[in-house]
């Protein structure tokens, strides 16, 4: 187990290295010099020289990369060229809304997805099953930002039940936070709920055809217990993998959803950094998300252990 963890952590580092190289070269491929983009037209040669030295641009690129990636590994993502503060600090200031949104959207996706998937599988071949599959198909096809805009029109503009945009900090009361998060979380989570529902249905249908389910039924166990304790538990492994992928997609989706609902989170910061050409922040945000994603994948693999005693990592 310990060797498995160590190997996984090492391979995570290898993946981060590849991500780092990709991001580094993507940003370096900016046409023209980054300094002219940052300082504008009227910069003096001295200013340009200073900035080049500060950004390590006077070094050959392998040295630039080594310096930057070495910092990343130690948790130093560099400094924002626009806000003049460390990138990590800039991200941390914007973390709460993003984390809460991602959490709420995951909650929507997982409960709605597994719930609908189980209902569809149990009512296989009926109108209910068909209806759930139609809803799932819509979830896959509706653009999250359009769904968000439609919800704002209905629930905020017409019915005035919920605030149209913005974010309520946790320190101002959890109830307020929830009111602000309901629409963004549903808009963001719905498409992933569809993915999870399709997987749950397919996987549970397979499991329901297995011998051990017939045995459980013939023992006279109540149907709900057969489905939830025996079949669903075995059906959850592939679903978990999909949930891991879903969380990664949600992590990317916050960028769009935060723009729709004007939420001042890390996703907005990414877009603002693009507009301000604040490349250190953009680089840092991308690396941070990749790290979170890798950790989630590790957690998903470890949770197999808890769900299926047959799985052993060595």
């Amino acid at each position: 187990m310990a060797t498995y963890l160590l190997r996984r952590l090492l391979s995570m580092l290898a993946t981060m290295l590849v991500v780092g190289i990709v991001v580094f070269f993507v940003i370096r491929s900016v046409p023209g010099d980054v300094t002219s983009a940052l300082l504008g037209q009227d910069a003096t040669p001295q200013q340009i020289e200073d900035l080049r030295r500060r950004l390590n641009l006077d070094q050959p690129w392998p040295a630039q990369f080594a310096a930057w990636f070495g910092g990343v590994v130690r948790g130093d993502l560099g400094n924002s060229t626009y806000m003049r503060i460390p990138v990590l600090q800039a991200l941390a200031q914007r973390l709460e809304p993003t984390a809460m949104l991602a959490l709420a959207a995951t909650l929507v996706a997982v409960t709605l997805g597994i719930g609908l998937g189980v209902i569809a599988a149990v009512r296989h071949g009926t109108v209910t099953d068909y209806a759930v599959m139609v809803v799932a198909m819509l979830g896959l096809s509706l653009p999250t930002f359009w769904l968000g805009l439609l919800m704002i029109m209905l629930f905020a503009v017409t019915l005035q039940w919920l605030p149209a945009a913005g974010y309520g900090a946790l320190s101002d009361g959890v109830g307020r936070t929830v009111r602000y998060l309901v629409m963004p979380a549903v808009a963001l989570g719905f498409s992933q709920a569809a993915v999870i529902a399709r997987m749950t249905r397919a996987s549970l249908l397979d499991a329901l055809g297995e011998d051990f389910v017939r045995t459980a039924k013939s023992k006279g166990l109540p149907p709900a217990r057969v489905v939830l304790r025996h079949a669903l538990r075995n059906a959850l492994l592939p679903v978990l993998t999909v949930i891991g992928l879903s969380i990664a997609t949600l992590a990317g989706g916050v960028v769009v959803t935060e723009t729709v609902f004007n939420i001042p989170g890390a996703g907005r910061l990414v877009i603002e950094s693009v507009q301000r050409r604040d490349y250190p922040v953009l680089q840092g945000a991308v690396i941070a998300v990749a790290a979170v994603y890798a950790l989630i994948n590790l957690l998903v693999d470890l949770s197999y252990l808890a769900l299926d005693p047959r799985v052993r990592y060595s």
Partner: protein
Amino acid sequence: MSALQGGGLGSAAVVGVGAGARRRTPPLMKVLRRPPVAFGLTVFVVVVAMALLAPVITPSGPNDLAILDRLKPPSAGHVMGTDDLGRDVWSRVAFGARLSLIVGLSTSLLSAVIGTLLSLVAGYYRWLDEIVMRILDGLMALPGVLLAIAIMAAIGPKVINIVIALTLVYLPRCARVARSAVLVVREHVYVEAANALGAPDRSIMLRHILPGTLSPVLIQATYVFATAVLLEASLSFLGTGAPAHVPSWGGMLAEGRVLMRNAPWMTIFPGAVLALTVLSVNMIGDGLRDALDPRMRK
């Protein structure tokens, strides 16, 4: 059409479905007649026609300004209303279809072709496999939107750049699918036989292994089409996609968002057409999967 079927039957044979198990009616034709697939095909054909005929079926150019006609609700003259610059929303929706279809088609084609070739070479020369897969894993370790935003931020808002960015996002996903097929096919006896007979590597890859990868990649490519159309719209919505003078559904939604209270038609129509387009491609994809994936056959 026959090329599609060839791919399907080829892979069925590979997985061991004997010739006797084949049906008289080609499964593809049967699947095409199912209501959801037929619906998807119909909608998709309409969207393609809309894109091709855009100059003929719209009252004005997508960028024609008519300041006196600003923010008019839908009427006989402007079936989808006008925007804040007096531009006809229907014209912009119809011309916007061109961008979505071009981006969807080029992205799915490029990522499928490059992804397949890459996995063929990597799956055949095993020492290459580790390197290629590490790089693809690195690309896949990022959410697609974020990777696309970062690439677009670096190379700038141009249509060709959208295709480049989206191909880099979806290429690894196609390569993964192709690779798992290559890994199965390359272990078959007939590949070993071709090898023993002294067939050159290139001919083994292209004539013996490639056919077995076609149908899973084709199915994957359809889904890539649908998600690429969505992702392009997201990028344009965020202002990092299509340049301002190219009408795009995502860009229209960004303009509509600000004027949602005064001009809901600016938001409703482009979004509905976008959703229908993606829905139709997803339905075609599900149909293809049912027809071509041997595991789905009863």
